[in-house]
């Protein structure tokens, strides 16, 4: 830089009074001796030479010249292969903002097929997961697993991504001494490896856990929930902390075989019946009369909080009970499949039945019902209400896209309502996504 300044200064003073400086150009000998000829031309020549030299590029610093580049430790090879190129480019698009809410499903499928995230996408993935993960610790675990050895290698270089190694390299000390998020990571990893051991650890730690009980239950919710967890959850229904009770009721409702499920089935059984009249079968609905203490213990809320505003009290109760009733209650009681039950006209009750059954189907991971409900909605079923549209949005993200209808034939393309168009696009996206991950 100063060489350029020297030339500028000399040109401002004038070559009659100033000596023309001889700038050093790397790789060229310095010509300090007097050069015959016009000093002004010489100055311009040297300025031109220096300009070219500066535009030419940095020089390679040879080995042994000091301040040497420190080689990084090489990442260990990963036995698992990367996902297919199509799946990789879809992940790239998702990280760029296309259906980012399906990221967890992409990662889960990749982990299930023992495939790895392509290395080039790891930085964007880890950045995204770091930004959203306080609200979704499960995403951290999934990305660490799908990222494999290369993600662990990167995490050692960038302190922002330490969550990757924190999860995989934690020992028993983490559980005794770690902070809440580390303990959560440890428990979630244990749950993924050995659900029974995690349940045992929760049972042992329960009494002393205090506010961490909610965290315990959320770990149970993410993985491997089974009837073996029921005694723990049933006991938690009598906890003082309302949030713990809510979680326990929510998890028990996901297990169709639980005692809570049987209690709900008894409450629900009288609410619906099929009347075979002269004009064909009709679904007759009688909502529950009121919400007693036993129902509240099982997580039913009598107030409308969280429910749709347009429902009155009894309709809301029906919705709450339906959402927690094992779906096989209905197929058993009516002797019909989910599709056949949904085909029975239910008139004004259809929106409540749709949302209630949808919540039950999603909670119980019942693909038969989810498929039937999505097909019902796409064929013009009751998604007109705001709540119905939101329910369809969630169904489209959970139902098996290979089994559902992925188009609607009910009306001309221009008249398809937005929620249905959105559901179709999500189902198609997921269908392609899961296919690509199988390649």
């Amino acid at each position, binding site marked *: 830089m100063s060489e350029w300044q020297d030339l500028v200064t000399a040109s401002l003073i004038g070559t009659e009074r100033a000596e023309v400086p001889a700038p050093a150009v790397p790789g060229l000998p310095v010509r300090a001796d007097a050069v015959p000829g016009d000093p002004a031309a010489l100055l311009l020549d040297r300025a031109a030479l220096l300009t070219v030299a*500066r*535009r*030419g*590029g*940095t020089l*390679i*610093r*040879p*080995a*042994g010249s000091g*301040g*040497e*580049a*420190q*080689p*990084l*430790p*090489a*990442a260990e090879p990963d036995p698992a292969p990367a996902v297919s*190129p199509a799946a990789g480019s879809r992940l790239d698009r998702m990280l760029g903002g296309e259906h980012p809410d399906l990221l967890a499903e992409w990662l889960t499928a990749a982990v299930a097929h023992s495939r790895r995230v*392509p*290395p*080039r*996408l*790891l*930085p*964007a993935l880890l950045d995204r997961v770091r930004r959203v993960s306080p609200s979704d610790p499960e995403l951290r675990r999934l990305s660490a697993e799908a990222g494999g050895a*290369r993600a662990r*290698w*990167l995490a050692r*270089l*960038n302190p922002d991504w330490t969550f990757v190694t924190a999860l995989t390299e934690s020992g028993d000390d983490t559980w005794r001494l770690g902070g809440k998020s580390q303990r959560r990571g440890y428990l979630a990893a244990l749950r993924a490896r050995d659900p029974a051991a995690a349940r045992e650890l929760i049972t042992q730690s329960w009494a002393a856990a205090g506010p961490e009980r909610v965290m315990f239950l959320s770990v149970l919710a993410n993985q491997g929930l089974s009837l073996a967890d029921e005694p723990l959850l049933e006991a938690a229904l009598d906890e003082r902390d309302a949030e713990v009770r809510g979680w326990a009721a929510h998890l028990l409702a996901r297990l169709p075989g639980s005692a809570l499920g049987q209690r709900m089935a008894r409450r629900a059984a009288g609410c619906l019946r099929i009347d075979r009249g002269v004009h064909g079968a009709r679904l007759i609905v009688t909502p529950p009369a009121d919400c007693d203490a036993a129902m509240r213990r099982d997580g039913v809320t009598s107030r409308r909080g969280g429910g749709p505003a347009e429902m009155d009290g009894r309709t809301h109760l029906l919705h709450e009970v339906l959402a927690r009733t094992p779906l096989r209650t209905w197929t058993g009681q009516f002797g019909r499949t989910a599709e056949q039950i949904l085909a029975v006209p239910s008139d004004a009750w259809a929106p409540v039945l749709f949302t209630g059954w949808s919540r039950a189907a999603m909670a119980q991971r019942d693909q038969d019902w989810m498929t039937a409900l999505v097909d019902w909605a796409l064929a013009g079923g009751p998604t007109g209400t705001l709540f119905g549209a939101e329910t369809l949005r969630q169904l489209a993200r959970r139902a098996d896209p290979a089994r559902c209808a992925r188009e609607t034939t009910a009306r001309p393309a221009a008249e398809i309502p937005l929620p249905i168009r959105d559901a179709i696009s999500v189902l198609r996206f997921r269908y392609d996504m899961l296919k690509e991950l199988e390649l």
Partner: protein
Amino acid sequence: MEIIPVRAPALAIRGADGGSLPLHPGAGDCWPLFALSGGHPVTLAGEWTPRGLWPLTAWDEAGRAVPL
């Protein structure tokens, strides 16, 4: 060229002979390049500028071009 990206003392690429060339400061963290390399040699094309090398494209193990 076949290089290994390095981080210390500054972001740079290192050739097989141990010679090194800084990465352009404006190119940012270059994390995708590091992720691709994993500390192993990687083929890289870039623009050799007065302030260092601006990485443009690298090739992954399968030989596919990855824009950086």
